[in-house]
């Protein structure tokens, strides 16, 4: 299943507010002066909800995915049963929830979340862990988990237990259909334990690699997006890796005149130059680093000058844009391109990385019969010497799919149907290029201009394009 962003249910949130308010009323002022100590109960679900535990399904998930099962259990009288829906289920696209306690618990005396689990099939649970509380999710931990059809005990290690002195997120999971089909799995004896055998920590950032990136003033990034993991060796001999929230780490910027990292892992760029960001977790140095080169502020694309009446705009801050389904379709299985619309220094821009090809799909096909050109602004910070892009407008709604193709850059293996509209030598690193592509007669291209719905840019020669920025995509008439 592709990675989703999980949003909490609004209903649950309001419930949570009410509870908080009630608790708030009961608190006497003298409590403020006392040291807060939280219960250190490690049990989450043994044969029922432990004290203060509540179930909150994710928005868009199948709300009834979780039930307490009295028939199937590993031990005791009940287990937790989760029913993953089949693709197309109107009640929800996936199963996912958090289990949060009303009062925080002190989990610093434990070293792992453990449980028994089995499935009706050997599904791979996409994400499972703890530390998700629909608040800061400050100490979020997740991993994937391979089920078997027999009960097996699983261990999710705590990256650094000393941090968990007041934790509410006891457990969370998110799982989609396997090969389109729903299935069920069970979890039992869910608890935090002090195993004593969680050892040999090997924290990493950027999955242990040393990477160099260009970043801009005024556009902070989150280290949460940079492969933060903690790996322990378990008693079984398995090296278990979990994704750990930035707050488990202690980050260091080699040049605080360039980059500063907050406790929550937000990196702010404050001046031009270079800084190397490294980290440690629980006193152990993490492998991997992020070196940022900050040239200054992000260069803003030139503002188009034509009036709205003469354009059909797909992506521009200057114009009203036609609705789109996406600026990146993440087409499986060959597309590697990451990224889509982003905001840099207040400007909307399309930012693609690991670029091989990417498509923008319009919600409603547009008629470009009255248009003479297509305009697009492109910028690359590091310019490959062999850049060659293929830009296609497509009509998928005509009886046969029709299209017009255009070459931007080198004429590598030139296809006569795709004439060069912009030379590779006209690109400059870090400078926007405005590319104006004439709409050719249908007789030359086959394109049925009455229903264009797709614009695709391909890195046809697999040039080493690290990051490509795209802005101001619009059709216009001269």
């Amino acid at each position, binding site marked *: 299943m592709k990675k989703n962003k999980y949003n909490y249910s609004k209903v649950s949130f309001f419930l949570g507010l009410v509870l908080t308010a009630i608790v708030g009323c009961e608190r006497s002022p003298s409590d403020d002066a006392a040291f807060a100590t939280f219960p250190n109960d490690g049990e989450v679900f043994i044969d029922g909800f432990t004290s203060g535990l509540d179930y909150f399904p994710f928005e868009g998930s199948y709300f009834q995915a979780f039930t307490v099962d009295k028939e199937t259990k590993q031990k005791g009288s009940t287990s937790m049963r989760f029913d993953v829906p089949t693709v197309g289920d109107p009640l929800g696209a996936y199963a996912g929830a958090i289990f949060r306690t009303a009062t925080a618990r002190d989990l610093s005396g434990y070293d792992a979340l453990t449980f028994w689990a089995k499935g009706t099939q050997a599904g791979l649970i996409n994400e499972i862990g703890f530390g998700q509380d629909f608040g800061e999710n400050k100490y979020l931990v997740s991993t994937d988990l391979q089920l078997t059809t027999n009960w097996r005990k699983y261990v999710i290690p705590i990256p650094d237990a000393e941090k968990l002195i007041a934790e509410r997120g006891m457990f969370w999971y998110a799982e989609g259909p396997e090969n389109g089909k729903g299935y069920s799995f069970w979890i039992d004896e869910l608890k935090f334990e002090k*195993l*004593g*055998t969680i*050892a*040999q920590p090997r924290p990493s950032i950027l999955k242990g690699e040393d990477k160099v990136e260009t970043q801009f003033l005024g556009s902070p990034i989150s280290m949460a997006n940079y492969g933060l993991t903690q790996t322990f*060796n378990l*008693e079984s*001999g*398995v*090296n278990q890796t979990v994704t750990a929230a930035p707050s488990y780490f202690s980050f260091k910027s080699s040049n605080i005149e360039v980059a500063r990292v907050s406790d929550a892992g937000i990196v702010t760029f404050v001046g031009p130059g270079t800084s190397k960001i490294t980290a440690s977790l629980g006193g152990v140095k993490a492998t991997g680093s992020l070196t940022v080169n900050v040239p200054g502020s992000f260069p803003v694309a030139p503002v188009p000058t034509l009036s709205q009446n003469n354009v059909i705009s797909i992506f521009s801050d200057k114009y009203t844009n036609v609705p789109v389904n996406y600026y990146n379709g993440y087409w499986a299985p060959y597309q590697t391109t990451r990224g889509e619309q982003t905001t840099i220094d207040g400007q909307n821009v399309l930012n693609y990385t690991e670029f091989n090809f990417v498509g923008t799909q319009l919600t409603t096909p547009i008629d470009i019969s009255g248009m003479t050109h297509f305009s697009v602004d492109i910028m690359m910070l590091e310019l490959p010497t062999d850049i060659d892009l293929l830009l296609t407008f497509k009509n998928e709604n005509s009886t046969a799919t029709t299209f017009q193709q255009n070459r931007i850059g080198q004429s590598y293996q030139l296809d006569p149907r795709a004439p060069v509209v912009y030379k590779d030598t006209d690109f400059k690193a870090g400078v926007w290029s405005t590319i104006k592509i004439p709409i050719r007669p249908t007789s030359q291209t086959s394109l049925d201009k009455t229903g264009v719905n797709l614009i695709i840019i391909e890195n046809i020669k697999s040039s080493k394009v690290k990051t490509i920025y795209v802005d101001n995509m619009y059709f216009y008439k001269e």
Partner: protein
Amino acid sequence: MEKILKQEKMKKINRNIILVKGLLFKSLFLALPIFVISSCATDEKQTVTNFTEIVMQDEFDTDGVPNSAIWGYDLGTGNSDTGSGWGNNELQFYTKRTENVKVENGYLLITAKKEPYNGASYTSARLTTKGIFDQAYGRFEARIRLPYGQGIWPAFWLLGANIDEVGWPQCGEIDIMEYRGQEPAKVLGTVHGPGYSGGTSITKSYSLLNDRFDTGFHIFGIEWGPDYINYYVDNVLYNQITPANVKGEWVFDHPFYIIINLAVGGNFVGAPNSETIFPQTMLVDYVRVYK
């Protein structure tokens, strides 16, 4: 400062030994009834020898190469007796380079590295007292922190000093401690002899509860008398092997010498894989032999 700390540690250890002795006897008596039931034929009078007189010890207090008055080396990938891979299809090339073996900060460090070396993919070290020190009976013990990972195979063991005359397994082998890096909470104690070697050896494992062997030091030892070999880890006696247990000749009445090594791969553990972290180091705090 370092020295004072070391002395402190020594004192503590000595105290522990007394404690260990006390507990050992207790454990031994506890173990007795089980033993009697399982082997009625043997003499029911158990002789427990008190091995208190130290005859050999290395506390690894001098940095540099290990003391040559105690330790020699087995080098390469095997000898004429064992054949290639030391008889177990082990993958390492043993050296005596400081990269693989040295004494530092009060510990003997044996390090397995992943590196191409004389046709092998790994290097490590194997220390032996062959021809320097051997003894029949007594208490042999070492305090060790073990390495970890798939395919990592450290051992503290004894071989019969008559191996060159009678060969293996007739010479006898007492494995005081063997361990698979992929099972970090478990060690094994084993004897090999004629009719009970390799896969048919007499062995027993001991597992820690809520702890493991690669995160701290543990004492691995045997108490060996004419008719028994008692195995212990820290203060826990976990096995006793007597002539009644072996399906062949009892070959443990002559002097044995000591081997400490860190193997990589081999039949006992399987090869390392992509999950195995290198280098891996075995730390030995001391080796002591009592009679």
